[in-house]
């Protein structure tokens, strides 16, 4: 290599290889520095969750907790006023209720938009696209009043029932995906006497697992993290979700940092696990979001 540079008459510091090396050093040091900044808050949280109060308030910080205070987790979970296990169960009820409804209704609606022809179809498709821009702040109050009149406030119905009527973005993503499935498969099935339900169950759904996975994973995250809707509709603490539970925990026990951080870890950890299992779905989902807007 050295002979090469001399032969071409270029000093080594101008050679392609050397410049590439310099560039790589800069890129990777920046990446390492920035990624540690991004991970640091997580580290700090876990660190505090494993410390006793006396160690938490030490400065300079004791980086590795000694002794490891597991009982912060016990404290967080055994507070009778804030039953985190109940919150966890409540959140899972919402997850199952909303995701099931969203998938079933969106598959049906997306199939209609992707495959069936009818007068007025274009009109309804533009309505679907227009709902992306609907102002949440405007709809919120009448919706609350509606559910209030129905006597649904302080139940899970205001959160679950709307999901059974489809969700615009999921419908749009599914429709885009269904369009790529070759029609021949369905035509062959129809010849064999299959009805629409058979087609959905035997052809469309099995071939659409990538987009269904994206929607399931993103929905799981959104429901798990949702703060505003449960805040609006759930009043009694026995019905709280885990996100609302943590917000109240935060309000009541400002000083007790260890258990508070332990509860935060519990709120975050399941999502991080889901993220690592379904990383591809997350990244694809975000890309689809971006591409949909281009």
């Amino acid at each position, binding site marked *: 290599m050295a002979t090469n540079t001399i032969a071409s008459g270029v000093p080594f510091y101008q050679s392609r290889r050397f410049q590439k090396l310099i560039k790589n050093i800069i890129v990777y040091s*920046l*990446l390492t520095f920035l*990624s540690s900044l*991004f991970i*640091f*808050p*997580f580290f*700090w*949280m876990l660190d505090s969750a494993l410390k006793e109060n006396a160690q*938490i308030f030490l*400065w*300079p*910080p004791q980086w590795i907790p000694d002794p490891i205070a597991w009982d912060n987790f016990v404290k967080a979970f055994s507070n009778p006023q804030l039953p985190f296990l109940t919150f966890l169960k409540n959140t899972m009820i919402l997850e199952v209720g909303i995701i099931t409804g969203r998938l079933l*209704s969106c598959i049906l*609606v997306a199939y*209609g*938009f992707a495959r*069936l*022809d009818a*007068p*007025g*179809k274009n009109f309804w498709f533009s*309505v*679907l696209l227009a709902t992306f821009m*609907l*102002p949440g*702040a*405007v709809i*919120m*109050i*009448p919706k*609350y*009043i*509606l559910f*209030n009149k129905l006597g649904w406030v302080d139940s899970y119905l205001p959160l679950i029932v*709307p999901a059974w*009527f*489809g969700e615009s973005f999921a419908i749009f993503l599914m429709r885009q995906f269904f369009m790529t499935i070759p029609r021949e498969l369905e035509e062959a099935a129809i010849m064999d006497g299959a009805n*629409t339900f058979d087609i959905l169950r035997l052809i469309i759904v099995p071939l659409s697992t990538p987009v269904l996975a994206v929607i399931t994973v993103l929905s799981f995250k959104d429901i798990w*993290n949702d*703060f*505003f809707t449960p805040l*609006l509709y759930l009043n009694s603490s026995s019905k709280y979700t885990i*996100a*609302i539970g943590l*917000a109240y925990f935060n309000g009541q026990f400002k000083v007790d940092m260890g258990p508070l*951080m332990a509860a*935060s870890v519990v*709120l*975050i950890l399941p*999502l991080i696990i889901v*993220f690592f299992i379904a*990383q591809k779905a997350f*990244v694809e989902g*975000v*890309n689809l979001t*971006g*591409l949909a*807007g*281009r």
Partner: protein
Amino acid sequence: MSTAAVSVTPKPKSKRIRREAILFYICIAPFILGFILFDLIPMLASLGLSFTEWNILTPPKFIGLDNYVTALTADPKVLISLKITLFYTVIQVPLRLATALLLAMLLNEATKGMGFFRTAFYLPCIVSSVAIAVLWTWILNPVYGPVNGLIRFFGGEGPKWFSDPKFALWGLIMMSPWGAGGEMLIFLAGLKGIDKQLYEAAELDGAGPLARFFKITLPMLSPTLFFNLVMSIIGSFQTFDTAYVISTTRAGTLGGPANSTLFYMLYLYNRAFAGQMMGYASALGWILFIIIMIVTLLVLRSSDMWVFYESERKR
């Protein structure tokens, strides 16, 4: 709306076509019903309510444009919350997008370990806003937090962040770049779409890294930047969760301390559900919607000048 769809229906040419149309409407029925029940009716109701005075308990009273007039001329908190929201947006959005672009460009250069770094940058985006709020109040704790610890290490004295009206909003702004992972992934997808030959040709012509960034990367990425910009602005105007959690626990009041983090949505929420002023809050909702529409339209108008679509060039 449904009558329009029905009246347009032409005489079906055959039984098959008619059956397909019926099947179509059966399939999309959930969407049509959901749209009418949970979008269309609430929107019309909200418009109607915004012209009334209503506390849920007694029947609504029609008061014309009074709510709008009060909000825009006689309620100082509307102006305060608008100013705070606007200030936050003007600082936070560029900061966040610049961070996202920097991270995406670095990732685009990395060959090995790209997956690891991408995960690290995206991880904050999957965390719930409540956990983010709890975590950052701890990180920006005036006495025991690592940020003020670092400042003290260099001999300074850090601010009291969320307990100080001068710094509370800055605390929220500081948290924003941490969540840039979503925009970063969208930028990354945009960067991957840029033809490598453009860079090679530019390099042959002697273009340095800066020239390549401003003459190739930025113009080619402008549609992605435009999308990210519009979405961030819309999101920023509706900031709620973190400000709610932090202000109610740190300062003890919604939008505190001393109204320094009174975002528009916080005030709207406060009017509707603490003040029971449903009509007034509906008017506030429409004002926000109109402001967001105007800002979006302005960005859209400006896009002719700076957004570059390759498909248009080819025409």
